[in-house]
């Protein structure tokens, strides 16, 4: 019995499980690894862009991370990133800063949830 993880959408995970992976591991493990590997850089891009007030760059990084999130079924995190992307593209600096503050923690929660999911057979 697999517990329902609020961070991840079950149907996406089920679909991933059906997919063949390149190296014997489960596809969930593969995408989880990619997420864990690439998300820190994107978070850093957001942070740095925000510091130099480059809001389009903040939006672009949010968009990229959103794509990763979608692939692992992290729908809530996706929603968060979408909001950030739109706010950034609208040039709303204070909105961006407020939203950005919550992103790293949420991202960490997804990584953790993925790790749990990967561990399951």
């Amino acid at each position, binding site marked *: 019995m697999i517990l329902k993880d609020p961070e991840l959408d079950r149907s*996406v995970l089920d*679909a*991933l499980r*059906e*997919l*063949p*992976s*390149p190296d014997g591991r489960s*596809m969930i493990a*593969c*995408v989880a690894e*990619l*997420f864990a590997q*690439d998300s820190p850089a994107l978070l850093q891009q957001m942070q740095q862009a925000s510091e130099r007030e480059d809001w389009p760059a903040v939006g*672009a990084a949010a*968009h*990229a991370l*959103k*794509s*990763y999130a*979608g*692939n*692992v*079924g992290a729908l809530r995190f*996706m929603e968060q990133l*979408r909001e950030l992307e739109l706010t950034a593209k609208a040039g709303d600096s204070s909105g961006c800063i407020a939203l950005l503050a919550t992103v790293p923690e949420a991202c960490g929660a997804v990584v953790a949830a993925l790790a749990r999911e990967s561990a399951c057979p």
Partner: protein
Amino acid sequence: MPLNLLPQPVRRVLLADDDASTRLLANSVLSGAGFEVFLAANGDEAVDSMLRDRPHIVLLDLEMPGVDGYEACRRIRRLPGGAELPIVVVTSLDDPGSIERAYAAGATDFVTKPINWVLLVHRVRYVLRAADSAGALRAAEARNQALLRAMPDSLFLLDGTGRIQACAAGGGALPGDVAGRELPATLAALLPPEAALALPTLCAQALSTRLATTLECQRLQHGVTQVLEVRLLPNEDGTLLAIVRDVSEQKFAEQRIRRLAYYDNLTDLPNREWMELRLTSVLMAAGKAGRRVAVLYIDLDLFRRVNDTLGQLSGDAVLIEAADRLRHCLSSVQLEAADELPLARLGADEFLIWLPLTDGPESIGATADSIRQAFEPLFPCGPVEVKATVSIGVACYPADGQDVSTLLRNADAASQQAKTAGRNRVVVYRAEMNSRALERLSLEADLRRAVASNSLEVHYQPKYRVDDLGLVGAEALLRWKHPRLGFIPPNEFIALAEAAGFIVEIDRWVMKRVCEDISVWRAAGKRLLPVAVNLSAHEFLNQSVVAMITDAAAQAEVPHGLLELELTENALVHDATLARELLTQLRDAGFTLAIDDFGTGYSSLQYLRSFPVHTLKIDRSFVRGAPDEREACALIRAVIQFAHSLGLSVVAEGVENYRQLDLLRAERCDYLQGYLMDPALPAATYAAML
């Protein structure tokens, strides 16, 4: 192997996304579904892969760092093979504006993120299949276009009135009309005026009869005559398919074939078969329009002699020149159809011209006479020149004949009349000519019969010395007593025999008869005096004449010295070289030679001097005028002096009274014959004088 089991080639998919997890997943699902997958992390890489890997389909994330999906899409479209490539953009569901921008950049389709991986495979297959269908359609279209271009046709979809609804231009017909120009509203605008006028009617006809109709027309295209065939095929819905084909080549081939069948190679004139077809339609058209047509039957005078004496090559040269003279004559006549002269060669030496007749039949006389005059100059024929005048008979449609054969027969009768009347003249047909021709025809048959049955007679007109009126010989003269018509004058039936071409048989018959008579007289112990025999001008210039005479003499064992051969000047001057050769042969064989009717013909004193003749006979027409007419006397004196100066003796013909005899004595003429002494006598009567 059924078609659907053929191994499908592996299809190549290019995916461009900056998201590594998307690349991983897409690669996994698409590879798992049998695709060969190429991955790119940004637009630049996508364009590179496009060139390197030649994918069948591209999946393109729109938002990528650097060259984004929009730009990559635009670039791919410009690459070779990129225009038709299916490009599926990957975009977020929350950004509908991006889809529109992607289509503007050339996207084929889109999928939204997050991607449903199972459905993605189906989507890729679906888009590929659609692209394949579109490609096949394009290929078919290209093949159809190629087919159309290869076809000599242009296709038009017309409405019932001939307005163009659609067009596919083929390679042949109407080039330059359809291609690169705005299509006119109606097909008629592309056709020459006559065809354009007929088109609406033909369209209506094709639609009402539901049968294809065809229209053929000619037009001048860049100075070249083009023949177009327009086929109209009715459709069920009231439209028509018009197929316009350039049939120029075919037409020209037909014309070449027609030329071979209907043209005379020698003169390049149409032949009798063509003339019959052409003249039939000319007469039909004239009949409908109430117009008249004159036909000119043109017969080359004495042409056969050119062929017989100078050879066929010379004859051919004369015919070619004759055709050219006729063409030249027609070039000055106003013609309706400029490309087609109303002229044909009917037979060896017969030509036909037909012309519209605007005034009375006499009006054509001037034209005919100008043609006659065109033949008066001598024909150059190798080293010599020959005379080839024409006898022209004119008959008019409809008065002289309603159909080609009647018209031709009557024009021919008129031309025969022209020949009989002395050649080199024009005779317009009159109704009585046919009866005369018929009469002539039966007379000709009678004459042939007379020759065959030995019922001609040779009479002898004694010839005397002027000095002492001693008998020196006789001239053999042919007599024909027709069983019904009585005596026929020699000039009439000789002309008949010449025209009918059996004068040589008559000459042979006379020669044989004379020799037999001499032989009989010799057997009877009579005094043997020379007999003069006329050789017809028509047949003299023939190598066989020498053999004919020597054979006749040998058969009857008649010494050649007893035969004097009389020829007219005209027989000699036609071909002086040959005449001189034949005369020399005859003289060397021992025959005596005389020139008959001297002074009436066309003679050259220079030639005469070089001919090996012994005697000149002064024509009776000069003697008849003497001694009252000064000119006649002067001519007689001149001829006698001329003859004597060349060492020739002189015979005066037709001497009828003593005053003429006195004149001849005074001028020292050598011999005479005529009614003053005797008419031509039956052989027995003459024999009694010997």
